[in-house]
């Protein structure tokens, strides 16, 4: 079976699974799963760009996704003028002082030769800088957080359409990736993993604690939507007409009261589905754009160069390729894609909840998607995103159903049965690990392995 047949078959399988969910559970649930599948696929594409193209081991996905979420808040929420009035200037001064400190520290580090003098000057600069920054930032933050803490207590955003934040999310993530890459790239692959894991935890810690920025664990809810609201749809004539037309078969020949009842319930149900469909359209568009660009990039000379660097750094360097530069570049691009996906996720949720970012779900699950789908193959990552997300969500009901069936003979109140039913949701972690290990061992290329011309010749 060649790769094209495999792709078609695998995606047909996914479509069937989604159909089953739609027919047996509900179409609304199916669309929710589909939307998250699309977002996961974009994230998986980002990881694939870093790992599959260039062999960079980034396990900081969670942090970059969270930065995308921050972008969604900062772009879409309106500013809080009171907060700006009480703390804006101090905060701007603090930010300026902070940047000045960083610049001075970098200059000292570069200009003075290694030794005690450099260490002294450097630590002096940094400590002084921190004190100066905090002299302005501490009161500013206290003032800002005191402004109506139940509702705002933060600076707010700039009040632009939230779709714009998808780009800004990518830019935020790219900026962070540039800083991280400058520090951590060039380390051994597993050191890079540890470093990125740590940085993503720091980003989440900052989001949880810096209330002036994104309200911390108080969350920012009610982000504006890029798609219509259900309540508006239910009131608009064209939508009611559309529902009527779609349901004309079942509405036919009913009495007017029955007809009105059925129509209003169909309108309510359909409005939810319609909103989800709008999201699906947006996410699918983004996925198609990023996927096309990824495929084109991988097949271009640039992609061949990246793979050459991945497979043999020494020989690529001997050919005059700038390894560090290319690594930094691909690290930034991949992180930007993850940031875009993070912004999309927050848009879909309509709120930013820093407490829900968990490395198992936002970092390691994405890795399972990439490895299972096929690292180095863009379509494979998309497939992995769909398949693994579907399994992750459906493992719980299926697990409960299985355990219910298997322990039914124990009787309804048996403690072992109750414990197992309760714990069934944790089996999905176990299953994911097992799937990852099995695929790695018996099918290391993943479901859709990387396609290379060299590979065809050597096989």
């Amino acid at each position, binding site marked *: 079976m060649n790769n094209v047949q495999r792709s078609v078959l695998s995606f047909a399988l996914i479509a069937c699974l989604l159909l089953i969910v739609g027919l047996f559970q509900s179409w609304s649930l199916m669309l929710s799963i589909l939307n998250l599948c699309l977002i996961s696929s974009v994230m998986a594409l980002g990881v694939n760009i870093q790992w599959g193209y260039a*062999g960079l*081991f980034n*396990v900081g996905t969670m942090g970059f996704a969270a930065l995308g979420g921050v972008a969604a808040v900062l772009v879409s929420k309106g500013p809080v003028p009171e907060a700006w009035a009480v703390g804006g200037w101090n905060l701007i001064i603090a930010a300026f002082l902070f940047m000045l400190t960083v610049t001075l520290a970098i200059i000292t580090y570069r200009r003075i030769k290694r030794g005690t003098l450099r260490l002294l000057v450097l630590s002096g600069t940094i400590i002084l800088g921190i004190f100066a920054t905090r002299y302005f930032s*501490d009161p500013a933050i206290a003032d800002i957080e005191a402004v109506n803490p139940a509702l705002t207590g933060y600076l707010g955003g700039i009040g632009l359409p939230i779709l714009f934040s998808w780009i800004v999310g990518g830019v935020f993530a790219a900026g962070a990736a540039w800083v991280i890459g400058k*520090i*951590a790239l060039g*380390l*051994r*692959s*597993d*050191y890079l*993993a*540890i*470093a990125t*894991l*740590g*940085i993503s*935890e*720091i980003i989440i*810690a*900052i989001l*949880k*604690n810096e209330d002036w920025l994104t309200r911390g664990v108080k969350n920012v809810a009610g982000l504006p939507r890029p798609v219509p609201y259900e309540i508006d749809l239910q009131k608009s004539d064209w939508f009611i007409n559309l529902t009527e037309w779609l349901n004309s078969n079942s509405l036919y020949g009913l009495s007017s009261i029955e007809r009105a009842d059925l129509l209003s319930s169909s309108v309510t149900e359909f409005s939810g589905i319609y909103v989800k469909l709008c999201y699906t359209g947006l996410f699918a568009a983004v996925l198609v754009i990023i996927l096309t660009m990824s495929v084109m990039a991988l097949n271009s000379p640039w992609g061949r160069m990246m793979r050459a660097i991945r497979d043999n750094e020494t020989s690529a360097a001997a050919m005059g390729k700038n390894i560090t530069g290319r690594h930094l570049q691909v690290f930034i691009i991949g992180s930007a894609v993850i940031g875009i996906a993070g912004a999309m996720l927050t848009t879909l949720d309509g709120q930013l909840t820093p407490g829900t970012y*968990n*490395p*198992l779900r936002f970092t*390691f699950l994405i*890795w*399972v998607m990439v*490895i299972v789908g096929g690292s180095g193959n863009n379509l494979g990552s998309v497939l992995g995103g769909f398949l693994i997300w579907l399994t992750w969500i459906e493992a719980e009901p299926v697990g409960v159903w299985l355990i219910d069936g298997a322990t039914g003979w124990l009787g309804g109140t048996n403690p072992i049965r109750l414990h197992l039913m*309760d*714990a069934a949701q*944790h*089996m*999905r*972690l*176990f*299953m*994911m*690990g*097992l799937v*990852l*290990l099995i695929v*790695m*061992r018996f099918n290391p290329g993943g479901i859709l392995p990387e396609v290379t011309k060299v590979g065809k010749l050597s096989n």
Partner: protein
Amino acid sequence: MTDIMNATVLLSNFVIIPVLAYGSQLALGALGVTLVYGILRFANFAHGDLMAFGTMITILVTWWLQSIGVSFGPLPTALLALPVAIVFTIAMALFTDRAVYRFYRRKRSTPAIFVIASIGVMFVLNGIVRFIIGPNDQQFADGERFIIKARSFKHMTGLNEGLAFKVSQGLTIGIVFVLVISLFWFLQNTRTGKAMRAYSDNEDLALLSGIDPEKVVMVTWIITAALATIAGTLYGLDKSFKPFTYFQLLLPFFAAAIVGGIGKPVGAIIGGFVVAFSEISITYAYKKFLKYLVPENWAPEGLVQFLSTDYKFAVSFLILVLVLLIRPMGILKGRVI
């Protein structure tokens, strides 16, 4: 004079004793990470979850012992359960090696592949632990709680500040001290220990001199699993057991191992204390401490806290970054990155 005494006691109570206990726990964990790194040559992401697995067995056995009325006098019952848990955890570690890592070792895969495999193991262990004991906090400490109580210390010395010394802290420091000394004796003086060091230093040379790699790897896993179980149990007694917290401990472990010089057991211990000291001393509010020492009108207004306690993990990571920038091989020259 009393002011200075008060300040010292205050600092001991809130910084020095917690650092000693937490540092010892980190040192044990980092020793496990560093041993696996030195011998098997990869960063084991499943270490925190192996620790959680061992602690879970300890808790289950402790509960069973408590239910049949066994207790260990003033000491926690968990200590009686510990040997059983160690045996189970060793079995689990050896099983994962046989089922997962051996395959890649024979193929001589790159470290990244090992790490991804360890992520798979991490998921599996995490799933097992949550499936059996659930994701919530579990308290399993019993027996006496304090060696010295804050109130009786105040009574005894007549100072303003109390000094509390918990049994779990005393146990941690004592057990880790004994363990570390015996581990070093083992590594320096026994045949197997020397084989392990030789294998870690230069694999090919060690193989040439007839060292059996499978045996070295096996002993490494046995030691790692035992250390992980003990570290996990001590941490759980001192604070509490929660699977997710144990997973998160991975970061300070890595930081400690790298700061000390990865692959170097002594380095892991130094690193453990460095990380613990920085985490606690940077997030401690020095206001009260300074009030005792400086003249009255100099007393600071703020908390004099460098970072809020929520940034604990960030601190261990900052140290990691600093070490990577300034001295990438760690305090003791570990493996070249």
